[in-house]
């Protein structure tokens, strides 16, 4: 009934600690070897098949909530992000459903472009994090890297952000 919706993200996101255990289980199912880093985030590499280059991943629960963040490194940056790269990343955030693109920092402080997919836990079913959902998200990250790493590299080198747009148009 209208007018009775009260958003409560914290309650509906679940417990990060509990979901972390489920995450490990799912990673084992996916035969993904993840190790904990000093920040308690899990790190590993994933590739859906031998034809894909593995993507370095970080698994974490932002804000200690149950929403699982799958962050993959797209390409490293040698220097500050180019003006065109901002537009390109913004464009991809609009266009690529389920993923976001941004410039972040690696543990050693170097900048890089990351692609991220967040998985919403299903608290009404078991398991809350399904392996196939996770695999689908990870495969999507691999796909983004395979498709956009090179175009973004060129944009960072000074090419227009429209090169990324054209790449996406070519895919469609």
């Amino acid at each position, binding site marked *: 009934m209208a007018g009775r919706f009260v958003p409560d993200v914290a309650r509906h996101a679940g417990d990060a600690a509990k979901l972390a255990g489920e995450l490990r289980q799912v990673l084992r199912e996916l035969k993904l070897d993840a190790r904990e880093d000093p920040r308690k985030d899990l790190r590993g590499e994933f590739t859906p098949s031998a034809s894909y280059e593995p993507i370095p991943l970080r698994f974490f629960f932002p804000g200690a909530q149950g929403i699982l963040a799958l962050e993959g490194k797209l390409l490293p940056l040698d220097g500050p992000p180019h003006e065109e790269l901002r537009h390109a990343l913004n464009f991809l955030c*609009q266009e690529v459903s389920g993923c976001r693109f941004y410039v972040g920092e690696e543990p050693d402080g170097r900048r890089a472009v990351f692609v991220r997919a967040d998985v919403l836990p299903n608290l009404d079913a078991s398991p809350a994090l399904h392996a196939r959902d996770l695999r689908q998200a990870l495969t999507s990250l691999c796909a983004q890297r395979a498709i956009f790493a090179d175009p973004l590299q060129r944009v960072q080198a000074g090419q227009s952000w429209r090169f990324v747009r054209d790449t996406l148009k070519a895919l469609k």
Partner: protein
Amino acid sequence: MSSLKATVARGLEALGLHVEQDRGGLTVDDGLDGQRLSVRVDETERMVRVEGLICYPVDDFSPELSLAMDHLNRVRAGVCFAYLEAQRALAVFTSWSSPVRDPSPNQLHLLIGLVQEARGRDGPALERVAEGDGSWEEVKDPEPEPPGPGARTTGRRGARFTDEAPEFEAPTRQLGRATDVRGAVEPVTRRLEPEPLRTTTTRFSSTADGGDDDAWDQVFSGAGARDLATQRQDPPVTPRGGQDDEATVDEPPPSAPDEGFKPTSRTALQMAIQNVERREPERVDLSAARQRPARRFLVGLLKLAAFVGVAYVVIEFFVRPFVPHYFEWETWFPKEAEVDHRLVLREQASPKELLRLELEDPLDAEGLHEQYLTRALDGLGEELRGELELLVVGSPSGGTRAAALELWSRRGFAEAPGARLELLRRLVEAKRHEEPAEPVVPALLAAVRSNPPPDQQVAAALDWAKGDVWRTLVEVLARPGDGAEGRSAALARWLDRDTPDLLVLRSMVKTGFAPPDAATRLVVGNGVEWARGEGQALLVGFVTESPDGVAALSRHEDEAYRVLAVELLAAAGTPPAAERLARQPLRDASGAVRIKAAIALTKLAEPATTWPIAVELCRRGIDPALATELRSALQRIPPTESIQQLQPRLAHTRSPSERFVAIQALAALGTSGAASALVEALAEPDVNLRRTAAEKLDELGRSEVAKPGLNAHLPRLREVARTDPTPAVRQAIARVYRGMTGHDP
């Protein structure tokens, strides 16, 4: 309504949301403040996407705004922030996807709640950053991430979503009052009159692109409020026309109805990945190269060459050996039988002509050749010799002349007396001897050499002979034996016209009747080297026959010639040559000649040279080396024969000097026979000679070699030792006797 979409719609309604369909998908609002969210459902990808605008308009995607949104995308969970250039608005998205399960109520709650939370929490800060009123750090949380599960969002914005009375916050932009922080007047671009929503259609499809862009644009481009979070109602506004041309570099492209930002589907991405993986190489049209005429020509040539090569090998090695006649020209194009026209000529020719024809061009068939030849010979009869000789001399062809000569010889005409020389004469007259590669003259000369004609004829032929013919005839005369003197005499007529190589003289020497100075003339004419080389045999032969022939050479003023004379005499080695050697050469003024002669005498050991050697030994002032060599020569002569040469010289009728030389020579021999012969000299009437003999015997008596010869004469020795009137003789002989017997005589 499709299944997933229906499920989502039911789920959202169950959450207390008002759900409406439109062409783009679903729109959701809470029915309270008019916030509307767009919900897109993709049945194929099994994806649900919720989108909400945060603020509008945002004219510039500034670096600060980009940093702010980057930061939020990095730290916020479940939401994605983006700047929509076409709408000039900031938007926030959430999404859900699962291939195996439908969205659960909590997931649907999260989809809506995350958007609303983001708008409420981050919207104002983003707006300030978009306006340029603050840096990107406005969006940074003062504390870390929002608290864990169970905690409620509080704060100004958060209260809006609770049951508490919301705090109303005046919008940053007042409708109707155009403000622009940059000072420019901002026109009112939103119509406040609500417009009815377009009729939703069932055209909402489960396409991969996620929905219809038109409805989406209608919903969100029609947002009139700058901050949608504060507006109760957002009248739709038609999309602005006159959008900036996409041609402008920094202007965003116009959002055409058939374009727009379609979310990328998973299927498209997978297809893109496959395309990337396929990595097919560029297709190059190779047919263009193949079609070039030059290339085709060359390829054709290569193929032809290969075919011809293979065909040749097959035919040559596998076909021809079995059927060779198939590959002969005559098998396919036989020649007409040729008629030998020569037969016609021969049939028509006279015997003379026939002879000439057969000799010039003999028929290949042996039988025919003989047949026609015989016919010619028979036809010529007595004239055959004349005709043959005419052909031998006159035929222009050397082959014909040779054939004629052979036939002439075969017919026995060469045996006729003087026939060969006569033919030679005619050939010389015809100057055939001067022609190069002339076959007949050499053949005739060879016949003359092998079977010489009589010497008179040959000698007479010297008058007309020329060149090689003359030389050959001279050589024919140069032989010893019967008639050699006559041949030498015949040659002597030509001595003054001798050839530069002294052929005549040499030929005379060969006859053995050469002039006395022949050797000298030959050596002088041809040189010492010739004499020691090819001429040595000739000269030695000459000296052997006539040792005196080197007399002039032995007296030549040139020492080399005198040495050569010694060599020739030594090479001859005959007793007369040895005697000759022991005379003049031993007395030569040159020591080299004397020594050479002495050495030669030593080798010869000729008894006849005993006396000359002895005479030289006794010559006063003789060279010691020569004396040694002569003694050696003397001793090489058999003692018996040398004693026979010397002993007669002891006779009293000989001159004292001769008797003296004999005594000295016998003493020099030193043999027992010489000692025995020397005893005879004790009867020498000449005191001096007798004393010399006694002294020599005294010397010989000390030699064991001579003692046997003295033993036989002991009584004589004792008598001389007692009775010789000369004391010196008696004493010397006494010593000899004492030495022989051991006691005094």
